[in-house]
């Protein structure tokens, strides 16, 4: 009994910092924001109201922005899958183990630099006097620079670049556990390369694809830096609306409501996507 008690004390002491961190820095602010999302300025201070939420649905610009954001996030998630799957396959199944870990390390380099710097990097590449335009002009392919920066395309490139790593890693993890003899067995049974890919490799790596998809979608839909810097004025990104509510119009109640709407709607999209694809959350990432 003595032993058990002392174990308990040590256990609580060890878990205390984490609990404090979670409660003070995450749970309490969320509760505070949640409360303020239901508050509007009345005659005698704050009053309870659903106005902050109804504003979202009443104003076309808000929910259109949200739909635009969600559509881009879904598109970028799919694109991330298309771009990274061959990379993950190559690194786990084609290249020899000797180089695989080194190459995977190279993949992580953009993460060491940080999002802001990476995004500025893309400005240098995509700008009117950036690397791409200057080289195209130098080789005489175009006369005038193509306007690429501050468009939805440059924004998508940036978002894709900062998020695709989170797609590669879960897919690589599932592909690593894929026994090569499954591929050989399918081939032995008369399956073409395409059939093997569609019927064996994709279904097998579905848990990795799903967890990668969830991470990328959440990262993209909640990202602020890339849409703000690379998307420029024309980008309609929902996080920018939230930013404006907090810091431009100082309407914290509205901002908080938008924040919770973002959380709830994006979670619902993931839930729906899991239902449609027949995946179970418990299996994801295993």
């Amino acid at each position: 009994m003595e032993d058990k008690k002392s174990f308990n004390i040590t256990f609580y002491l060890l878990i205390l910092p984490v609990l404090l961190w979670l409660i003070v820095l995450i749970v309490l602010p969320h509760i505070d924001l949640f409360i303020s999302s239901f508050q509007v300025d009345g005659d005698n201070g704050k009053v309870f109201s659903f106005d902050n939420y109804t504003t979202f649905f009443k104003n076309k610009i808000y929910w259109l922005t949200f739909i635009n954001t969600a559509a881009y996030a879904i598109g970028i998630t799919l694109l991330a899958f298309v771009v990274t799957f061959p990379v993950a396959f190559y690194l786990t199944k084609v290249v020899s183990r000797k180089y695989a870990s080194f190459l995977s390390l190279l993949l992580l380099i953009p993460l060491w630099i940080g999002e802001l710097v990476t995004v500025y990097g893309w400005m240098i590449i995509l700008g009117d006097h950036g690397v791409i335009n200057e080289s195209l002009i130098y080789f005489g392919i175009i006369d005038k620079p193509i306007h690429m920066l501050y468009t939805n395309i440059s924004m998508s490139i940036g978002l894709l670049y900062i998020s695709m790593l989170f797609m590669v890693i879960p897919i690589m993890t599932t592909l690593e556990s894929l026994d090569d003899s499954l591929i050989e067995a399918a081939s032995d049974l008369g399956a073409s390369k395409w059939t093997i890919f569609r019927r064996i490799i994709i279904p097998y790596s579905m848990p990795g694809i799903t967890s990668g998809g969830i991470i990328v979608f959440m990262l993209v839909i909640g990202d602020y830096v890339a849409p703000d810097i690379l998307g420029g004025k024309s980008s309609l990104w929902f996080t920018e609306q939230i930013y404006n509510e907090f810091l431009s119009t100082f309407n914290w109640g509205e901002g908080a409501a938008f924040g919770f709407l973002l959380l709830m709607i994006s979670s619902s999209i993931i839930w729906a996507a899991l239902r449609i694809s027949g995946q179970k959350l418990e299996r994801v990432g295993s």
Partner: protein
Amino acid sequence: MGKILEIKNLTKEFKEFTAVKDVSFFVEEGGFFSILGPSGCGKTTLLRMISGFIKESSGEILIKGESMSGIPPEKRPVNIVFQSLALFPMMNVRENVAFGLKRQKLSKQEVDERVKDMLGRVSLHGFEKKKVTELSGGQRQRVAIARSLVMKPSILLLDEPLGALDRKLREHMKIELKLLQKEIGTTFIYITHDQSEALVMSDKVAVMNKGRFEQIDTPRNLYKNPKTAFVAGFVGESNRFELTDYSDHKLTTENGWKVEKPNLDFTPKVLYIRPEALIIEPTDDIADLFKFEVVIKTILFDGSNTKVSAIVTSSKDELLISLPQNAKFEDLKEGDKVQVGVNYNDLKCYKE
């Protein structure tokens, strides 16, 4: 019966070594042919060349008289049962077995019929909807075999499929596989390092060592008359003695025995004696015996397969002797001194 598979001078060279060296053999249609060899002898490489996953360096593979050179695995009339079984974990039993048939664009009805029929043959009727991860080892085995056999291959290649099973189940599957092969009539080529699997199931066994075939023979002949020292040592148990001389029809062993062995046309270097060829306390009326004395070291009780480990009194050599099954020497115990005899015909000599 015709030759369903013919291999001519097949060689596979890898960067560092030659895995298969100039192997030639043929397999008769409807036979159960085993390739037996220690790990690393090249048997898996040979199998993968037959199935098309590895390209041969030189030589030719003919299936039903047609050259397989340049034909990819999915187009060859052979199917493999993999060592790991390689069942598709995301599919149920029915989907696994139907996988190959669906690739052939058969009607749904035909696919269903053939899958059902095949599952019946491997006694997995009613398991259609089960996930393969829910099956026992033996059942998974049968799904893997059904998945290949449903394709009606000319040859079924089996790459040590019993390796992962526990002993009891393996013994059971051995008999089951042999019966299944007899019933279905498909040619089986079975790869294994386990001599008992090869001997029990096969019509013919090829013993492979260091990329070459040492002997191709029926299991009985392989055991009774091993052609090389490797086969004598690898197939079944044997007591090995080094030889120093052969003259006047007499062998001289390293431990100083002089044993009569008439009419050898070569100078042997090693001598093998099977444990069951050693007769304990032979009676005087048995002719052509070489006799010596041993001291019993330990009794290795194994039911009907009980042996004793004994030390030769004159030389301290250790050897294995099978006990006869008539319980005559049941009370034999450690430290007993016994006479042992061996017939000259049971002395197997090799050049090495």
